[in-house]
């Protein structure tokens, strides 16, 4: 266990004055894996990353990197590669000197520096940029150089602080693929901080969803998306409808949940979070799992079919997001467009299948 874990956080706490930014956090990050800290701004993800980096000292708890406790080790002795949101390339140094910077403070023989820098620049596909200055490069290129500078020192862990957020949308998706390719190629343990759920879902081996300084859920992207542990997680990833219901009988495979005005849904027991009979809970219906059909469609055998009216349409090209009024609730449906999108005011049938749903505890109302 201790051998396969690259980073361990043991009960770390960070307080700023009277404010607790991170509450007693435990996390075990496996060697070679890509782990994302995901959450809205102020959730503590950046604070956590800065504690791992050594830029902040935890108020309590212990940080272990590769079996070595580094809680009080200064940042320059931790052997980490960090890529900052705004790249932070040294503006007064050439690209070569930027990338070579970390090597000069290590016992790397002078003769080997040029070769290592060249290989790093090749890896990020910018082999001929060595003589230029950062200001002569585009944002995407600067980002690649920042990555090259961080990995050339062969760090134990690569830390990425929202590295894609300064790029424009198209470039961001390309860089996402690129970053993942390099990470897999090097097999380097990577901790990635983002507030963008699509980045997290696309790149991670594991996602740590955080809210208000607490870890809400840790799991593989599919797990976090399909079986959210809480209403917060369900809402934060993708578009989800949360409908309150009462849990009924369990049949082993499924749990029956009664929803006022809608009817009874059979939710898989594996995604029911063990919520017991008689309790109130929220049913999570993903927007892309709420299927809209014409009013006269024949109902499905294993699904509830509910009449509703489209109240708003958010057209997205290949798909559309509809807001549908069903039994006094407004639900979201994200459906591909086959012939033509529905229009505002159309009467439709909203189809919900119990096996697409998940159950989460009711939200704590503040």
């Amino acid at each position, binding site marked *: 266990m201790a051998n396969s874990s690259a980073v361990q956080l043991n009960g770390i706490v960070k307080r700023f004055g009277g404010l607790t930014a991170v509450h007693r956090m435990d996390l075990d990050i496996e060697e070679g894996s890509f782990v994302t800290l995901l959450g809205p701004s102020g959730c503590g993800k950046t604070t956590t990353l800065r504690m791992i980096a050594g830029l902040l000292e935890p108020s309590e708890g212990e940080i272990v990197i590769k079996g070595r406790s580094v809680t009080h080790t200064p940042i*320059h002795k*931790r052997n*980490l590669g*960090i890529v*900052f949101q705004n790249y*932070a390339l*040294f503006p007064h140094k050439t690209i070569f000197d930027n990338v070579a910077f970390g090597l000069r403070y290590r016992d790397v023989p002078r003769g080997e520096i040029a070769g290592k820098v060249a290989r790093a620049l090749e890896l990020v596909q910018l082999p001929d940029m060595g003589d230029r200055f950062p200001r002569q490069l585009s944002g995407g290129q600067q980002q690649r150089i920042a990555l090259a500078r961080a990995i050339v020192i062969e760090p134990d862990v690569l830390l990425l602080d929202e590295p894609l957020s300064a790029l424009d949308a198209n470039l961001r998706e390309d860089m996402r693929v690129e970053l993942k390719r390099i990470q897999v190629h090097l097999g380097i343990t990577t901790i990635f901080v983002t507030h963008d759920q699509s980045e997290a879902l696309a790149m991670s081996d594991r996602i740590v969803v955080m809210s208000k300084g607490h870890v809400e859920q840790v799991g593989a992207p599919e797990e976090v998306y399909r079986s959210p542990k809480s209403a917060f997680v369900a809402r934060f990833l993708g578009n989800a409808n949360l409908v309150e219901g009462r849990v009924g009988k369990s049949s082993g495979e499924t749990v029956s949940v009664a929803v006022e005005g809608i009817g009874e849904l059979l939710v898989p027991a594996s995604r029911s979070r063990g919520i017991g009979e008689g309790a109130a809970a929220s049913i999570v219906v993903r927007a892309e799992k709420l299927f809209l059909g014409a009013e006269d469609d024949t109902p499905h055998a294993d699904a509830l079919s509910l009449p509703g009216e489209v109240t708003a349409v958010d057209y997205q090209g290949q798909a559309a997001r509809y807001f549908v009024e069903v039994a006094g609730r407004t639900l979201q449906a994200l459906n591909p467009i086959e012939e033509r999108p529905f229009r505002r005011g159309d009467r439709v049938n909203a189809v919900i299948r119990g096996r697409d749903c998940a159950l989460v505890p009711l939200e704590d109302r503040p």
Partner: protein
Amino acid sequence: MTGWNFLRLYTVAVYLFMFLPVAVVVLLSFNSRQFGSFPMEGLSFRWFVELWNNDAIVRAFRVSLLLAALTAVISTVLGILAALALVRYRFPGKNTITTLLIAPILIPEVVLAVALLLFLRWLDMPRSFLVLLLGHVIFTLPFVLLVVQARLVAIRPEYEEAARSLGANPLQTFFAVTLPLLLPAVFAGMLFAFTMSFDDITGTMFWKPGGVETVPTQIFAMLRHSISPEINALGTVMIVVTVALPLIGMGVARRLAASRS
């Protein structure tokens, strides 16, 4: 339109009022006659030559240069250190310390001069070149501090964090990243300190030990005896030093800044 013309005329008049006396001094320093009168009767460098041969003036010039150079170096080093502490760290009493460091700008120089003198008497320290230097550092430090601080605020801490994450210790980070990025401000601050020290007369009068003269106090002393045309020549040299030097310096600083942004 007449309003604009009036404004233009008025502006020109103000500038003439400010710079004409200076121009007259420069012009008369090239006069070949002993007593300045217009129109000038001939051009010559004789007053500059006499200046060069006047031991007292050459000595004063040396003192001024040494004093200004030392003031500039010490003020700059202290200013950088203070700016780093005030911008990059949080500690109790920070606002008080900022105010104390900036205070010499706000206090009239005569008051500052007397205060330092009384303080030194209380310490039983005689006036010396060291005291003079100390005084100059005190009143030039705020200018260096303000210039360096303004630049440091604009340098994002991520550069330093990146350097440290790559294995540079705090001292190595300062010399490899922070100082090079600060250089334009450091240069400008140093020039400020140099010219201010070189020009100063009020504080210098109070602090200088007997027998030591700087260029400004030397001019002042010479004026008490007679109005020699040598003073015009000396004035011209002073103007060249205190105007040309900052102009060149600003040019260099701008080029440095352009290559570092």
